């Protein structure tokens, strides 16, 4: 079975290399969109974004005031955002719920004191489900502020230690012991988040993966139309070997496209995919799920055009539900729960688990979920596979 399958794989890859549309879908489109989305969202300076934020200052201390007066008021001065100051968390929540603001920052009581004492503290972000981009921006503002505070705190810690004239590595050790001063707590998100550039690099890659794999299996319908399927069926080759060869083409196309995208987005826009082994596991599982879904979908098609349409509809719906166009996980609620019915969401969740330097073990849950999709789609596709190799 392997030899004819490999012959088909080799022939198909040669054809795909000559076919510009495969390259467009597999590489150019996802890369372009990742760049556009990533660029737009990674800077708050985009002119098109009209954002409004709420802020609740329950702290009243120097850190909270600094955040409100320097960071947020600064955005307002620059015409990038409008700011509404409210008194209670309830009010802030209402603002976000009503859509009056994209997100409300909650600066909890004791924030300044905690930061001063080198203890962890929290800034909450309460987001509006309907303004995902605004929520994303709010999160990155809070992130940036936290990072700056941390740097300051480390410097202070180092200065203190210098007073004690310790050796250099002891200083470094002290600095490391200091707790990160602020933990961004997102009232709506349960998961760690990817930065916008990485998020869109990954989401566009996985979104287009579900289009790319069609360049393998669905060519069975092209072969039927051009008569060559008949030739394959008359050759001394089992029908299973033909299916295997086509499935291998899908898998190789998917793997190649994902590899190119991971490398290219890392190099060009600085996407941070995380542990290579973890990413490889997620990619492999994702490619299998996409191939199995593709096989299932095209088993309902009679013509190449139908196959293309069905495939596009399914890939689009799964992509939308799976949150590839905005980080559903950052918003939470029922949308996030629905999104978990897609391999896309698990793929992005797996990358979220890798964010911040976790090892490949962190993705095993997500990989298992994606493989479960692959198994279910695959079993259904195998049950219907005879239709794919009818003359």
């Amino acid at each position, binding site marked *: 079975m392997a030899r004819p399958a490999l*012959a088909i794989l080799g*022939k198909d890859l040669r054809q795909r290399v000559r076919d510009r549309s495969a390259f467009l879908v597999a590489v150019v489109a996802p890369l372009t969109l990742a760049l556009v989305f990533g660029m737009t969202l990674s800077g708050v300076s985009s002119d098109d974004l009209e954002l409004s934020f709420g802020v609740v200052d329950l702290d009243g201390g120097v850190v909270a005031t600094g955040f409100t007066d320097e960071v947020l008021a600064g955005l307002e001065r620059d015409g990038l955002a409008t700011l509404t100051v409210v008194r209670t968390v309830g009010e802030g929540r209402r603002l976000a719920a009503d859509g009056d603001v994209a997100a409300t920052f909650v600066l909890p009581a004791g924030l300044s004191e905690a930061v001063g004492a080198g203890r962890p503290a929290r800034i909450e972000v309460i987001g509006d489900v309907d303004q995902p981009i605004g929520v994303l921006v709010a999160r990155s503002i809070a992130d940036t502020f936290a990072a700056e505070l941390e740097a300051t705190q480390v410097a202070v810690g180092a200065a203190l230690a210098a007073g004690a004239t310790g050796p250099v590595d002891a200083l470094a050790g002290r600095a490391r012991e200091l707790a990160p001063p602020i933990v961004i707590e997102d009232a709506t998100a349960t998961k760690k988040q990817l930065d916008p550039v990485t998020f869109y690099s990954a989401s566009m890659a996985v979104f287009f993966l579900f289009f790319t794999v069609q360049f393998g299996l669905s060519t069975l319908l092209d072969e039927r139309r051009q008569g060559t399927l*008949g030739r394959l069926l008359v050759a001394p080759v089992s029908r299973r070997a033909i299916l295997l060869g086509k499935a291998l083409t899908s898998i190789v196309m998917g793997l190649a496209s994902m590899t190119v995208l991971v490398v290219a987005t890392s190099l060009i826009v600085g996407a941070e995919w995380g542990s290579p082994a973890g990413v490889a596991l997620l990619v492999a599982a994702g490619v299998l799920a996409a191939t199995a879904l593709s096989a299932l979908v095209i088993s309902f098609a009679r013509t190449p055009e139908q196959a293309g349409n069905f495939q596009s509809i399914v890939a689009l719906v799964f992509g939308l539900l799976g949150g590839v166009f905005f980080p559903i996980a950052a918003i939470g609620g029922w949308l996030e729960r629905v999104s978990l019915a897609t391999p896309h969401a698990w793929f992005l969740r797996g990358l979220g688990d890798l964010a911040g330097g976790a090892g490949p073990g962190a993705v095993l849950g997500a990989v298992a979920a994606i493989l479960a999709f692959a198994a279910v789609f695959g079993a259904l596709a195998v049950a219907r596979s005879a239709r794919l190799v009818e003359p």
Partner: protein
Amino acid sequence: MSAAPVLVCTGLVKRFGDLVAVDGVGFEISPGETYGLLGPNGAGKTTTISMVCGLLERDDGDVVVAGRPLTTTSVEAKAAIGYVPQEIAVYPDLTGRENLRFFSRLYGMAPAAATERIGEALEVVGLADRADDLAGEYSGGMKRRLNIAIGLLHRPRLLVLDEPTVGVDPQSRNAILEGVEALAGGGIAVLYTTHYMEEAERLCDRIGIIDAGVIRAEGTRRELVALVGERDRVRLAGSGDLASVATACGALPGVEAASVRDGAVDLIVEGARGLLPELLRVAAESGGLVDGVDVHEPDLESVFLHLTGKALRD
């Protein structure tokens, strides 16, 4: 024939809904023999071939190729078959050579042997100098020749050609026919379908005349023509009410079949010479203006007309 037949098929039946496209077809082909299936459009030639090659599920009947029973799921038995489909089936985005290379891999040929066979196949069909152009850029006739080259690449014991010369210029057609003759001379069994009587007469050792899914007669050309007996084919060319002419002439004693084709009335007539004046008189009376008369010795066309009452191509 003494050698064991390469193909034995019996009682083949294929239904498409209510239509019985093939209804109990059976024949044998020995090594070195060329067997022709001669029949008009829709006779069931392609459907028969599809069952013989294990492409189409059959509703009844058996196929044995090179001693092995063959079904759609057979793998080994199919290795003996070379298949040239009626519709051109090549990869337009691969070159001629790449097309052949792919099929050589699919048939499990060793690379070195494949290279040699690819060269030979390209020579046989006269495509050697265009082998490295994309098949999509070939002319219709060149695509057809590549279509054939793929079928004979692996030196099959049974070569199945489904109307391989349709739409080919006379020169290419002649080259193709010569190629088939050479292959049969080399011991290959050939199954050849056509609705060109001349091709069947030239190539085929034995011919099955198929119509409406049934083989109406089978034998060598001589045997088939003998079925018509002393009957000649008379062709009355002209204008006017040819349909009435056919009806009136068909009613005359001694006239066995009458049909209208291409501005002429074709008749199968016993003792044609004696009956000619009578035929012309009846033709004139029934409104026909006859301006040419041909009397043919019996040929396969006459046989078909005799057996089915209609012309091979209408």
